[in-house]
């Protein structure tokens, strides 16, 4: 407890530059989260740590900005009819269990292999999961784009049709976003995996959203909006757990929230202008770029653990900075795609309205 108190007293000094930096990163993170349901957190935690915030305080403060942000985002998207609250709560509760278990695994790894071992585990989890899931999401978006069917309704995958066809008495629940009943025995492990990933790499949505789309059969727009409910449930529980130990720096959390609430509203509005496959484009692109960012760090941690030849201090510094730079690039690129798609959608709508008006006059 003494250690915790020591960490808690280690709140950094804030100046105008730090506040502006956190506000901006919060805004971009919020923009992406409002659009794809998650994201941003993977940059925010290292961004805070780069300011000298201790790791645990950064994770706790990030979580404390995440749940109010997700709340506002989900309310906004619920207005557009994109949220399945029941699905969000059911997945959110099992995700909470996943967070606790994921944190426990993290602690065990840290105890056995130290800080470098823990970092290696996180980076390998990043690379493996993002390579498989991110690659698949991006490939699927590409396939849709090439087929020219971007305006058509998304097809439910064979796997999801199978999941929806299984009837296990006593476990069946109707979900609005699927317009079908499925067994909670399928949702529990998916929620759990989402939580575990959130505890490991801070972005559970990289599992949650694709799982809802490809395994359960939810449309992309509804899956990404429902992810915000999951993030709210997970974030609220997680924030309280960290707050019990006095680890939340509420100033950091609220400054990031100031920016991210501007962003999340904009991202949510953006979803009403784009074709559903754009959700997959943004998500897949971010996931694949972040993969390289974390992949670059693997040799650094392997070297720290003595598993490969020791890297020079200069090399480690270059690799760390490059890795952080790639992560920021991923987020900025995601934000750019969202804004561009939104701009094009708005222009198309204005044009259609103008044409209809002129046509009406003739």
């Amino acid at each position, binding site marked *: 407890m003494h250690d915790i108190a020591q960490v808690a007293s280690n709140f950094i000094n804030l100046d105008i530059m730090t506040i502006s930096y956190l506000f901006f990163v919060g805004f971009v993170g919020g923009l992406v989260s409002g659009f794809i349901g998650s994201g941003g957190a993977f940059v925010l935690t290292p961004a805070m740590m780069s300011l000298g915030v201790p790791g645990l305080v950064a994770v706790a403060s990030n979580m404390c900005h995440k749940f*109010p942000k997700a709340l506002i985002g989900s309310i*906004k998207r619920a207005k557009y009819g994109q949220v399945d609250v029941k699905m969000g709560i059911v997945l959110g509760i099992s995700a909470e269990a996943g967070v606790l278990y994921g944190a426990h695994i993290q602690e065990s790894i840290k105890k056995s292999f130290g800080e470098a071992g823990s970092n290696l585990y996180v980076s390998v989890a990043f690379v493996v999961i993002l390579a498989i899931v991110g690659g698949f999401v991006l490939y699927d978006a590409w396939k849709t784009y090439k087929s020219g069917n971007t305006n058509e309704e998304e097809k439910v995958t064979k796997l999801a049709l199978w999941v929806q066809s299984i009837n296990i008495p006593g476990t069946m629940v109707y979900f609005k976003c699927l317009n079908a009943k499925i067994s909670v025995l399928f949702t529990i492990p998916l929620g759990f995996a989402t939580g575990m990933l959130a505890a490991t790499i801070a972005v559970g949505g990289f599992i949650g959203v694709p799982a809802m789309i490809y395994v359960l059969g939810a449309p992309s727009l509804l899956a990404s909006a429902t992810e915000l409910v999951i993030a709210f449930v997970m974030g609220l529980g997680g924030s309280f757990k960290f707050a019990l*130990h006095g680890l*939340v720096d509420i100033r950091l959390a609220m400054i990031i929230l*100031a920016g991210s609430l501007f962003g999340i509203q904009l991202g949510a509005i953006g979803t*009403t202008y784009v074709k559903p496959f754009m959700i997959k484009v943004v998500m897949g692109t971010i996931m694949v770029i972040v993969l390289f960012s974390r992949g670059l760090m693997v040799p650094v941690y392997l070297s720290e653990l003595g598993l490969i030849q020791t890297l020079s201090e200069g090399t480690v510094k270059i690799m760390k900075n490059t890795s952080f730079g790639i992560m920021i690039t991923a987020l900025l690129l995601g934000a750019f795609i969202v804004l561009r798609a939104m701009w094009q959608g708005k222009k198309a709508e204005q044009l*259609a309205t103008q044409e209809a008006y002129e046509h009406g006059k003739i």
Partner: protein
Amino acid sequence: MSHSNVKRKPVGKMVLMGVISVTLYALLLLKQDVINEYIGQGGMYAFLPIITAFLFSFVHGTFTGDFWTVMGVEAAKKKKEVK
């Protein structure tokens, strides 16, 4: 002219929520030492950051929502028809 074009923008509400939001942030930063001291203790004070987050999200969330509306950034009217 369509009716949506004459819809009034929530300027007054935006300004009010903006002022409350700025006040809350000013208080948070001006009283940061006291706030950190309490929140840093954890335990029963764990409710403080949670309540703060809810309060800020309500006030600032309403303000940012109205901000985009006043700026003319609103959801697509007929999403399905947007190509």
